Structure formats: structure tokens, C-alpha cells
């Protein structure tokens, strides 16, 4: 811990009138002056766009932007679901399992409740009812996970390893490993609609990111999450109910999984316990790339969004270059290692320099 403590990034600053997520432009500008902060990420993103734009003929078209906007939302929401526990000093390994189970429940309800030849109104009602059920499920999962983390004191890695296994087990057991499809087509139609050139899922991501930013920066709960992540005992001594904060963190994480489940359902038009499993570790990579301290206490929604954009631009660029998905995954891993190495190097130079 000692070595780690010495290279922690500077804490998130809040200055100037707060507006929008993460207090608008002022803190962003403030951080631009910090090496290894968001400036580095923004620079990396800009450099990638320029390089791909020059090297890949089709890259600089509107199509790329739209494909990024289509592909980012699910990973983005799942990463937000990982962000909150990470800032609180924990981890949620059950996010994919939670999202899949919610998606399965909603898909099953939609399929079994929709009568043949139902009118649009009925279908809408069924969809809303199914979504409420999915939300309820996620709330229950979140409360249980949070309670286990908060009241037993078991490391969140182990708790969520257990809940993940449990949830996946239940999902697989009930579906016998099959896919549930046959959703009302209206659901996918809304889920994949494009409003003013922006896909609906992307709008959902933006809304969720704004909500998370607001939650973290502008509520007592949010401040407490950072405090719990950096020193839970000192926070407890400051009369903050740290158990309630932890339950809240995993509840919020689980609810974000519900939103991700809704998007996945629209995109795949089906649900399965096996979907998106490879996203689990990528969400952690994205968060750490975005400047979240893996020990907790620090991290921003802004940084996470920048990191996701970097990953997505890399993916789109390499797709256009005809690289395989596996090569993309390898590149993502290497980028993370590269960024961390650069940060360590910058720290050492700074310590040695004046």
C-alpha cells in the first residue's frame, strides 16, 4: 500500500460554480495542467482520431461517429456500474450477471405476457410492466450485495464473486443455458431508434452519465462515497453511516446494470446468461484507464467517458483496418499497460526533477 499511496493521483478538485457533470469546464481546465490527468487522456483521444483519420480512409466520416455512438452505450453503462463500487474502494464482479438476469427476466415476461395480435397499447403496457419487474429484481440484487459487503465486512471481490456465481447459476439453471428471444418488435424499434442523428442508447448513456456525475458530485451520498473509498474508518467517525453508503453504492451499481440490460435487450433482441461476459474485465480496464484509483477514493465520470471513447475509437479504427476482435482486445490491454507505465514514469521523473 505504501508504494501505491505515494503515486496516487491528486484528488478531484471542485472549483467555480458547479454546473453539469463534474462541475463543467472549470475543473477540467484545472486538471489539464496536471500531468497524467484527464489532459493525457484527451490528448490520447485526439491523437488517435488524427492518426486514424489520416491512415484509414473511411474513418473521418459520420458513419464512424455513429458506430461509436451505437457501440459505446452498453459498455459505458456497465462501466458506470463498475465505477461507483471502485470509487468506494470495492468492486462489483456481478454486473454482467445482474444485467443478464434482468434481461432474461424482462425478455421472458415480455414474451409470455404479450397476447397474440396484441394492440400497440397492450404491448407498451407489457413492456413497461416487464421493465418494472427487471428494475425490481436489480434493486433486490443491489440491496442484498450491498448488505453483504456492508454488514459482513467480507472483501467486495469475494462477495461479488459469490453473487456472480449465484446469479449466473440461477440464470443458467432456469434457462438451461438457452437464449430467450421473441420480444415484441416495438421494443427493439424504440431501443434502436435514432433521434436527430443520435441513437437512443447513446442518449441513455449520456443521461446515465449525467445522473452519476450529479450523484457523485452534488449529493451528500456522493461525497461520502469518495470518503468511504479513501478511509472508511475516518468516515465512520465523522458520523456518516458508512453501511448505508455501501448499500447505496451497490444498489446504484445494480440499477445501472438494469439500464444496461434494457439496452442489451434492444440490441440483441434476445437475452442469455452468456451475453457480454467479456465486458466484465473491460469495464475495470476502462475505469482504471479513466483515472479511477483501483484502491478507491478517486475517479470521475468524465475520465471514464474519455477512456471509453478512446477504447471505442481504437475498436472502430481497428475494425476499419480489418483487425479481428481479438486483436482489438489485445490492443486495449496494451493501451492500459502503456498508460500506467507512462504514469509511473512521469511520477519518477517528477520526483527526480526539481
Amino acid at each position, binding site marked *: 500500500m505504501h508504494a501505491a499511496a505515494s503515486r496516487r493521483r491528486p484528488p478531484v478538485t471542485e472549483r467555480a460554480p458547479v454546473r453539469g457533470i463534474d462541475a463543467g469546464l472549470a475543473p477540467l481546465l484545472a486538471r489539464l495542467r496536471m500531468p497524467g490527468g484527464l489532459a493525457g487522456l484527451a490528448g490520447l483521444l485526439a491523437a488517435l482520431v488524427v492518426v486514424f483519420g489520416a491512415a484509414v480512409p473511411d474513418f473521418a466520416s459520420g458513419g464512424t461517429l455513429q458506430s461509436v455512438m451505437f457501440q459505446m452505450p452498453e459498455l459505458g453503462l456497465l462501466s458506470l456500474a463498475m465505477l461507483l463500487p471502485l470509487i468506494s474502494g470495492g468492486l462489483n464482479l456481478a454486473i454482467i450477471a445482474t444485467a443478464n438476469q434482468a434481461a432474461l427476466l424482462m425478455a421472458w415476461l415480455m414474451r409470455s405476457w404479450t397476447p397474440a395480435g396484441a394492440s400497440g397499447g397492450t404491448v407498451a403496457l407489457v413492456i413497461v410492466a416487464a421493465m418494472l419487474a427487471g428494475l425490481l429484481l436489480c434493486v433486490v440484487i443491489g440491496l442484498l450485495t450491498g448488505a453483504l459487503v456492508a454488514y459482513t465486512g467480507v472483501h467486495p471481490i469475494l462477495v461479488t464473486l459469490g453473487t456472480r456465481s449465484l446469479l449466473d447459476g440461477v440464470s443458467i439453471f432456469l434457462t438451461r443455458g438457452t437464449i430467450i428471444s421473441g420480444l415484441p418488435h416495438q421494443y427493439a424499434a424504440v431501443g434502436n431508434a435514432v433521434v436527430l442523428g443520435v441513437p437512443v442508447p447513446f442518449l441513455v448513456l449520456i443521461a446515465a452519465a449525467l445522473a452519476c456525475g*450529479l450523484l457523485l458530485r452534488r449529493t451528500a451520498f456522493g*461525497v461520502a462515497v469518495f*470518503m468511504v473509498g479513501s478511509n472508511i474508518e475516518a468516515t465512520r*467517525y465523522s*458520523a456518516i453511516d458508512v453501511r448505508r453508503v455501501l448499500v447505496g453504492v451497490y444498489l446504484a451499481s445494480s440499477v445501472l446494470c438494469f439500464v444496461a440490460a434494457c439496452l442489451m435487450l434492444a440490441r440483441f433482441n434476445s437475452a442469455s446468461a452468456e451475453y457480454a461476459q467479456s465486458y466484465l474485465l473491460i469495464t475495470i480496464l476502462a475505469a482504471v484507464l479513466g483515472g479511477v484509483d483501483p484502491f478507491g477514493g478517486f475517479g470521475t465520470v468524465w475520465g471514464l467517458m474519455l477512456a471509453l471513447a478512446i477504447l471505442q475509437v481504437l475498436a472502430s479504427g481497428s475494425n476499419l483496418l480489418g483487425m479481428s476482435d481479438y486483436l482489438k482486445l489485445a490492443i486495449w490491454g496494451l493501451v492500459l499497460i502503456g498508460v500506467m507505465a507512462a504514469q509511473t514514469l512521469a511520477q519518477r521523473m517528477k520526483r527526480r526533477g526539481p
Partner: protein
Amino acid sequence: MNAPFLRLSGVSKRFGGVLALDRIDWDVMPGEVHCLVGENGCGKSTLIKIVAGVHPPDPGSVVAIEEHDVLPLTPARAHALGVQVIFQDLSLFPNLSVAENVGIAQVLTGLARPARFAAMREVARATLQRLAFDLPLDARVSDLPVAERQIVAICRGLAARARLLFMDEPTASLTRAEVNRLLAIVARLKAEGIAVVFVSHRLDEVVEIAERVTVLRDGRKVGTYAAAEVDERRIASLMTGLELNSGIVARDLAGAAPLLEVRGLSRDGEYSDVSFTLRAGEVLGLTGLLGAGRTELALSLFGMTRPDAGTIAVDGRTVTLRSNHDAICAGIAYLSEDRLNLGLNLRQSIGDNIVLAVLDRLRGALGLLSGAQRRATAARWVDRLNIRIPGLDHPVHTLSGGNQQRVVLAKWLATSPKILILDSPTVGVDIRNKQGIYEIVRGLAAEGVGILLISDEIEEVFATCDRVLHMRGGRIAGEAIPGRVSEAALRAQVYA
């Protein structure tokens, strides 16, 4: 006179722009018990680290052991020369046995060798025997009480053939009986010709058996004195460079309204049958040895633990404290003795630390926190307590000990408490800030806040409090009013 074991001459150390040590000349004789005292930040730890080979001193410095220049020094070389440091945290391995902790050197020889358990046990047994001390060799260190862990740490130093043993704040967490045991052990070491240097930021029991005392202040050596020549008051003024204000401020507040009434409070294994009254505007001292149950009592008054029996009344109304949130609602605030771990979120910003306990009160429209209010609240307290900060957004750990403590005070004062419990508020605070904190305390009392000041520094409670209680073995053992009782008499009572 024989040659000194350790001799430093002209040792300086600069960290960046700060001169931590300024041309120190110092020596330690073989078999001598020496006290190295000074306020926090005076350069004691830097000095130890130079002798232990952790930091290289600046060019021009000389460190000689048995008159041989030993620079440049590495930790391994320092060990080989017989210099061992017992850090305040003891640096033990809680998951290993006593034998392994003492004999750890036996397994540090390469990686692919058989671990010599028999040798390890033999070393541990022999070393414990040298100290005439008995500990189960197979016990896990995490299961031992602190005093016995300290014995293990001493044994590890001895097992590594120590000839000079630095002990950093060795008595901080020991009871008097344990201190006596430690002193007996030191006497044995001395008889074997091993030099022992006690390092401390205050004066305590170890001065009793020291032969010489060296005082450091602001990176310079003030002087080395024969222990018989100096008394505590003299050393304290040498340490601080100030003539301590020993004026008594005690007022008679017997007529003031009772603010906090504690009756028959007990908690199994921690304190029992504690009764006292704290009046409005009173500064009530609570002293006693570490482990007397002071902090445990304070934690119950702050709602962190539940008493088994007894009542707590605030303003005449009996309160039940289920959590510290309840305590704050009842107007009770508690400044912890452990500022670094329990008082502050060191890595977070100064502003957020100050408003942490009152976040609920800073809600604006829609239940959202108002950034402006957050900053205004923090800024107001920074201003009122005269905290010197580079900016509200900077992490707390960049501040000095004294300013950190003011940040903690600001956090609690922001809750507008009627009763403020201060647990060792001046530990790790330099003398100027100490005086500042006393002034704040007196100022708050003048405003009618009732203050329970917990401290094991007798002169502190004597000079600051209106009345002093002292605890022993979990019970209130006596009450004294500074002025009516002399400081020496109070000290005699507490250490009896």
C-alpha cells in the same frame, strides 16, 4: 573514558528546500542509556534514519562507529555494524510466530535454502532467556498484547547482534507495569554493554534510567545534558524554546448549568461505574495512563459503543446514543486521538474534510449539495480557526500536524456542538500550534461549550482545565482542581 560507540559530527540533511538536520554533533557511549527528545518535526526521525542507513546524509557529514567512518551506510551495513531500530509500529509480521519474528534473519539468506526452524527457535529461546522473559515461541504475534509484541521486536533486534538499539516512542502504549518491565530489560541490555537510545517527543518514564539526554529543536542540537542535571520543566523549555506558560486558568464553575451528566456508566472490560458532570463553559480534564479506559469512555459518549449500564444526560435530558449520528444530534462531538487514521481522510481535500460531518445541512434546491455553501462553510472555519492552507482543494496530508488538527477541529465545530470531547488533541502538534489549540479551547469554553479534554500530559490538563478527573483501571480514581492541588501532586496521583 572509553571511546564512544557511535559518533556523529557535522551531520546535515536537506530535503528539497528544508534543512531537516543542521550540523549535528552527537555521540553514544557503549552500554549507555540515552534519551533523544524533541518536538515532532525536530529531526529525530531523520537522525535515526541516517544512522540506520535509510537516508544518506549530506556531504561533509561524518558518521563513525567505534571511531571508524562508516559512510556511505546502507540498511544492511547498519545492521551488520550492530545498529537496530525498533520503530514505533514495531514492524513485526503479525501472521508469523514469535520464533519466526525473532529469528527472521535465519530465513533471509537466499531463496532456495531450507528454512532453519531449529536454529530460529534456538535463537528466539536464547534471546528471550537473555531478557529473562518467557513467551510461547509458537504463538502468533497478532495474538499477543502490544507490550509483548514490543518484547518480540526488542528480541529481533538483539538476535541480529544489536550493539546500539534505537527505540522509537517505546512507552506510548504501555501501562506503568509494562514500562517497569521494559526498564528492567533495558537495565539488562546495559549490563551487556548494549547502548539504548530512547527517542521521544515528550518526557516520560524512560528519563528515570537515562544517563544523558540530548535535546533537538528545529533540526539543531540544543545540547546534551546529564540526566541528573535537568528536570522535566527545563527539558520541556529546551525542546520548545519557550518558557512554558504554566499559569493556571482554572475557574470555579460549580454554579454553571450542568451540560453533560454521566451516571454509573459501565461497559464490560472497558470502564465501570463512571459518574461525572460537565458544566456549560467548563474545560474538564480527563487524564490517566493509556489503557485506563479514557478513550473507551469517550467512544461511548460519542455513540460509537453502547454502555452496558448507566445513563448519559445532556441538558438534563437522558439520551440514548445508538450511533455517533445520535451523539451529534445531541450536541456531542468527538475529536479522535488517532488523527491520521480516524480523524481525517488524508488524501481528500481540506474543504471536503471540513464539511464531512455536516453534509446533510448543506442541501440546497432539489436536495442537491450546494457547491457555494460547501466552500463558504469550509472557508468560514478556515478563517475562524486561522488554518494556514494553500487552498481548499488541496489534500489534507499536505498540511502540517498542527493545521491538520485544526481541520479536524473545524469539522467538529461545524456541527455546532454543545459538548466537545477532545482526545489527545495536541499529539503530534508543534508547540506554537499547541498554544493555538489551547486558545481555541479556552475561547470555545468562554462561548459556553463544555469541553472534555482527554490527555496523558499532566502539564497540559493542569494548565488548560478548570477541573481534572483521573481514571485508573476503568474507574474515575480522583478529581483535582489545578491550583488547589499542585501539578506534582496530581502527577503523583496519576502515576501512583
